[in-house]
């Protein structure tokens, strides 16, 4: 008999998960149910037991501390759109508005997007541009440790910088029976996001770009973090370009094809590999242009 667990505390959730690592963690259900429908369509009727974490309500929403922003993994896209956040999160907000329709935005969570680890996950590219830190925990017996805000009690597993958390297409470093408990973001700057698809709404990205730029009072780039998604098994930082942009005024002409050599796009029904590579370059130029315009507006 497939189980369905609905714990109200993280502690309880971790204990249940430790007892049955085969459970599937469910928050908004926006990946799990479509996956079930896809399998059932060709006669695979089995489904795993469910660990529904949606009642652990303190894992939802934003918290500001003197040094960081903490994002609960149960935070929905709609929560992100509605939250009062600094410009650093503009890219995250733009991504949230472009995910699914309002129905999915109301239900889908950033933690689910992260753990599902699709190469086309809009949220992951943005979190990577924000250099998010991912906190996870698992049940580790009766003794408890506590070293992160918000969640208590907990049994902290390794935390990851986002880039090391994602291991590959639909694979993460999340340990067996571990749950993402928190996402932290710090730093200054302004976030950007662009995605490309073949229609206006409800579209899975052909390519997408998330970026954070910060500049000094003379307009020279202090920080540039640029991430391209849907063009590799994992979203990729375009570090070579970031290095070139640093210390100079924002200029889209500085972005060159050779900076994108780490991308390994595929040919599929949505687009060709060559196109994805070119589109990634163009989208990056577009966000640099947009940032340069913002910079001029801010100065004025």
């Amino acid at each position, binding site marked *: *008999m497939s189980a369905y667990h609905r714990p109200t505390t993280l502690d309880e959730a971790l204990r249940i998960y430790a007892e049955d690592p085969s459970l599937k963690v469910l928050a*908004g259900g926006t990946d799990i149910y479509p996956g079930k429908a896809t399998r059932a369509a060709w*006669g*695979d009727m089995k489904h795993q037991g469910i660990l529904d974490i949606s009642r652990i309500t303190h894992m939802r929403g934003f918290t500001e501390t003197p040094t960081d922003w903490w994002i609960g993994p149960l935070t929905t896209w709609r929560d992100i759109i509605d939250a009062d956040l600094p410009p650093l999160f503009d890219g995250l907000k733009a991504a949230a508005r472009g995910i699914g329709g309002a129905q999915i935005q109301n239900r889908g969570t950033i933690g689910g997007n992260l753990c599902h680890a699709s190469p086309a996950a809009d949220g992951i590219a943005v979190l990577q541009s924000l250099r998010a830190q991912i906190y996870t925990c698992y049940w580790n017996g009766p003794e408890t440790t506590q070293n992160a805000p918000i969640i208590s009690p907990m049994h902290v597993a390794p935390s990851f910088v986002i880039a090391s958390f994602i291991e590959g297409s639909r694979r993460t470093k999340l340990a067996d029976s571990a749950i993402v408990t928190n996402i932290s973001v710090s730093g200054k700057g302004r976030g950007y996001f662009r995605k490309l698809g073949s229609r206006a709404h409800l*579209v*899975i990205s052909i390519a997408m770009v998330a970026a954070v730029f910060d500049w000094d009072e003379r307009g020279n780039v202090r920080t540039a973090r640029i991430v391209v998604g849907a063009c590799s098994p994992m979203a990729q930082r375009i570090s070579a370009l970031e290095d070139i942009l640093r210390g100079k005024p924002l200029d889209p002409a500085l972005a060159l094809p050779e900076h994108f050599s780490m991308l390994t796009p595929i040919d599929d029904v949505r687009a060709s590999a060559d196109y994805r590579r070119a589109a990634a370059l163009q989208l990056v130029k577009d966000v640099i242009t947009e940032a340069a315009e913002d910079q001029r507006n801010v100065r004025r």
Partner: protein
Amino acid sequence: MAAPHISLELTVNGAAHAVAAEPFSTLADVLRDTLGLTGTKIGCDAGDCGACTVLLDGAQVCACLVPAAQLHGRTIDTVEGAGPQGVTDQLRQAFLSHGAAQCGICTPGMLMAATALLTEIPAPSRPEIEAALGGVLCRCTGYIKIIDAVEDVGARRVREPAVANPRAETDADTFGVGRRAERVDGWAKVSGRELFGADAAPEDALWMRVIRSPHAHARFVIGDFAPLMAATPGLVALVTAADVPGENSFGIFPDTKDQPVFAEQHVRYRGEAVAALVGSRAALAQIADSDVPLAWTPLPALTGIEAATAKGAPALHSARSDNVLTRGRLARGDVAGAHAGAAASASGTFETGFVEHAYIEPEAGYAVPDADGPGTITVHASTQAPYMDRDEVARVLGVPKEKVRIVPTACGGGFGGKLDVAVQPLLAVAARKVGQPVRIVYSRTESMSSTTKRHPSRITAKASADAVGHLLAYEMHGDFNTGAYASWGPTVANRVPIHATGPYKVPHVFNLTRAIYTNETPAGAFRGFGVPQSAIANETLMDDLAEKLGLDRWQIRRRNALGRGDTTPSGQVLQYSAGLPECLDALKPAWDKANIDAAAHNAIDARYKSGVGIACMWYGCGNTSLSNPSAMRITLGRDGAVTLWSGAVDIGQGVSTVLVQIATEALAIPGLRIELNATVGDTGTTLDAGKTSASRQTFVSGNAARLAALDLRSQLLRFANAGDDAGIARDGDALCFGTVRRIRFADLPAMIEGFGTYDPPTTALDADGQGSPYATYGFAAQIAEVEVDMRLGTTKVVHIHAAHDVGRAINPTLVEGQIHGGIAQGLGLALMEEFIPGRTENLHDYLIPTTGDMPPVSVHIIEDVDPEGPYGAKGVGEPALIATAPAILGAIRHATGVTVRKVPVLPHRLWELIRQLQD
């Protein structure tokens, strides 16, 4: 195995409910199966279509994605409720007034998404409405009237919320020909009470699940079912070809019944039915396909026209050794000579792919054995062709036609895809075997992988003109991939040669077509029957000729446009309605302005290029040179009730409303309201009106309804001994004839029946395709304005201007609805839609246009009345789709300089072409 049920207390539409539910079941299951609130529809079960949108604590969600376990203590609003502050009720009235509901399957989702928006933002902007409704797919309306309706409620232009059927006081004044009458079936659609194929079945119905081939081509052996049966309580039967009592085959034409109900040892496409499980729903959910004893031997598959026509390619069907199902031909004049003497010639090869109908209602229904007497089978299903279904089921069961009754459910979109049987014979065979009602609901993927598509095409064509642009010759060879089985392949092959020149005067024509079998999904009927594909070729060649001759693209079309008195390539003289010149003239101001605007824009913008394109189309209404009669009956009872008994299935286009309007006009009795019979298309209670296809129902069944009403009227006059020209009017419980006679309804004969039948006059085509294949043709011209991102290859359609000669607009709102919806599908064909078996079998990989993809549409209705049509009307179902894609391609070419010969123009394809041009 499911987890134990949990107890939930939830509030639905203001009422508290306590229910028990399996925790991993969904909100949609709780609403539909536990609470019986079937107004919430399931289109995909995967959050892709939004049909199941409801409000959960005020926020719109897909009910198919919310676990029942999360519902305790929650508040849910569905289409059955009034909505917060009665907003849903207000929206209902606006949807009715605007004709925003066509088939109605997306309507509940749209209403709830709009309710959520208006509750949060009482007066939203149009972009806000587009965004809020962006998660609900509609395949019928092109979204425009839906957004208009929501905008009206936001602007408080709707005062009276609709809480009951508003069509209480309608008569000839509001319901005659030419009126923007509300749909006669509108209230059912906006109230959530309409019952589609999946919405109802007898309590004791067993469920059925079809086991389908995962291989495009394979042999298989069926093993012993006994162990599975023994091991699975609740599994009642496994059904295979061995259980088919009659012929295990179906197909549209008597000589092309080549598709088995259940395959026998050999499958020819991925998705072909092999066997079926029948039993309790819970039992079926436990059985994996892999539990069913089937041993597969995959075989090499023929994919695409080239592979199937290659030398030595194995034959899919022994009767067609060259894999050519059928050929079509039209020859007139001396094509070679005309090409040789021409001032300019243009040629090219054009390709299109499979296109999925993507109606939001997957196939569903149920069959009941012995309901209409011993040995009978009654099949309730979503269909476009009840009488054809009846004949097909009778043949499969090996029983006389009279033993089969088809009762159409509401049809949640068809577009040609529900012209073939799908669930009907499967259900009938299963119900006959188990002797008990059986129901089935296809999953989205099952619907997409197993049912018909638009034919992929490869068309090579050449057109020639004289120095001033008069067309001299047109030559085409079109191959159409008809997939594994014949379906409507012959219709496509026959219709295309007639239409392939486009609606132009061409003296010398040579058109050949072939329908080719492949190991792919069967291609069948889809809005336009091959003409949308051939129009892409002929309209592109018109642009080529204009370019070569230095002519304006509008001008060359106007110069060649078929009009009254002209002769078509099949040698038919268009005696009457042929309003293409008028259509083009209506568009001329928009054409000139759009070209000037584009030039001005392009002078200053290097990246986003504007372009304008134009295309024309024509479309013969009804079957090609085949009898396709319709019969209608209208009755008057002693209670004063007039009922139109219509067998013409309304698939959302509004034929029921059109027929009532026509009958109202013909009956001409002020104060008397015509009702529609409860179950349109029921083969047990209505006459055969033919199938809902080929843009024929307004024209053909409209005539039948007119004649039936006239018959009733003349019987009344005879009974009253009144002259033919006497007026009749209702006066309370009586009819007044002129000023002299008053007859109470109670004093009339028990039942007065009027009958009307109509079969459009056509002639057979000779070996050269010469003759008069259709009684009348619809004509249209459309302009597309686009903006192309030259760096990303993305195309945004920014405006469509559509001029359609419809003969007479019986209901202008419905005509506009058909034009908007056809344009949306044409836009999808041009820019995004491509069905690839095994790859795009769901609505997130197969993309259809959303709210944000539809441009504003300016509709010009041209009424060149056809004396053959009812009050002058012609068909309008298919035309808008046909002209849209070529106009968009022309606009892309104008914007970019690139001539696109393959659709869909996905961004990467256009980007590649632009790059080649720039190199």
